[in-house]
């Protein structure tokens, strides 16, 4: 498993600004932009967890994408080019095209969220939100913690039950039903567990006084400044050339209007974390003593 830790050690505010930019740019719903968004997220995710894990995730998200494409094109009938008619309603080329782009957007958002759930640890969330409201910070860390906790709990329970012979039956249906029972149990258990922790935190007085000081290790370094500068430069270009990213699908798909520099700027923005990691890795490679 490859481990990179240049981007994740940037200042939390920079990380938040970056992901806000990502979500802003994705909503152009432009085919090229969404493709680059997915590419950037995939590259960075593979740097974080390795290529095999990325491919395994794709195995699941491919089905999500197919489901989205089918359901969107079935319910939207606008568009100039009907492919065929399903129950007297047109399945059009334009709607299918848009559904593919939308599926890519959803995948890109999911993969960016996956990356951020790995790098945006609860100390960063607390650092950002406790100044606004301690309760909000607590709520956010709890809800972010919920899913990993659920996963770990589910795996542990599954191992024990397997060893106990809980799944020893010839019937597939029984196995599925038992699996679902465990799943439901773990979700409710984790819910309780999460709120129990919050009750403990509150009984310790957390969130009741504004005078409580908060320890953190985050300071604004020169590297943060450089990253912010490159981010701002790229997003400034995108705002300046936003006309070419605007896209429409109905009644007919917009003719190609993106220039090579427009595409490059977007690609660079989405690849920024990966490029930063690459730069750090090469720098450290040459800084190491060969003696």
């Amino acid at each position, binding site marked *: 498993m490859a481990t990179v830790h240049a981007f994740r050690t940037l200042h939390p505010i920079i990380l938040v600004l970056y992901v806000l930019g990502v979500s802003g740019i994705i909503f152009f719903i432009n085919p090229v932009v969404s493709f680059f968004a997915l590419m950037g997220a995939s590259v960075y995710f593979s740097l974080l967890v390795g290529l095999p894990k990325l491919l395994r995730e794709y195995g699941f998200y491919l089905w999500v994408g197919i489901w989205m494409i089918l359901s969107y094109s079935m319910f939207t009938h606008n568009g100039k080019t*009907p492919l065929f008619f399903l129950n*007297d309603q047109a399945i059009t080329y334009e709607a299918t095209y848009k559904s593919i782009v939308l599926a890519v957007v959803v995948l890109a958002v999911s993969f960016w969220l996956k990356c951020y759930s790995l790098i945006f640890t609860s100390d960063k969330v607390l650092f950002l939100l406790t100044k606004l409201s301690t309760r909000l910070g607590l709520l956010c860390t709890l809800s972010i913690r919920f899913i990993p906790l659920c996963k770990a709990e589910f795996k542990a329970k599954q191992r024990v039950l397997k060893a106990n012979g809980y799944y020893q039956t*010839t*019937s597939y249906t029984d196995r599925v039903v038992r699996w679902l029972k465990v799943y439901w149990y773990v979700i409710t258990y984790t819910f309780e567990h999460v709120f129990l922790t919050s009750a403990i935190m509150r009984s310790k007085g957390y969130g009741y006084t504004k005078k409580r000081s908060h320890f953190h290790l985050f300071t604004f370094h020169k590297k943060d400044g450089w990253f912010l500068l490159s981010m701002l430069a790229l997003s400034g270009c995108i705002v300046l050339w936003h006309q070419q990213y605007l896209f429409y699908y109905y009644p*007919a798909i917009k003719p190609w209007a993106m220039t090579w520099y427009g595409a490059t700027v977007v690609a660079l923005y989405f690849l920024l974390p990966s490029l930063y990691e690459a730069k750090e890795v090469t720098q450290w490679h040459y800084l190491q003593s060969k003696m």
Partner: protein
Amino acid sequence: MRKDFVVLGFIGLIIAFLISGTKIQSVEEYYLTHVDDITPDAETVTLTILNDRAYAERDKIPPEIHPYLTADGVVLGKTTYVLRDGDTVFDVLNRATRHERIQMEYQGADLNIYNSIYIQGINYLYEFACGSLSGWMYSVNGEFPTKGVSQYAVKNGDDIIFRYTCNLGKDIGHDEFE
């Protein structure tokens, strides 16, 4: 094991049900609609589809729709169609648009609370394209019925006009509170 077969059978039943309710037609098949010939003793209605108000206020409409707005505001000029037994306004419109290959999208009667079909868009001009008060309305002999298109039964000699409004019908001569 027995349980597995029961579940499998049930899933098969659901898939069979879904397939039996699905009709797939090619584009040619869909537009191949028969319109009865006009004979001297046939009962007929006339149908007109206008988007003149949308063309007049086209600066409010997204530019990608502009090439599909006809400059004279006529999508379908006044055309006579033969009436069939039990025809509603929707049946006439559906037959006409299919025959003339005009794009039309509608929401089925089972999908809304009015138990009537709702016309969402004709010729790529959809509801809300010209602001939040815009959409397709219809009138029969100059009156604006308070019924849905698939609930209004037409009779011999009716004059049906579908017209796009940008202001809840006030710009095409309909005032609810008259």
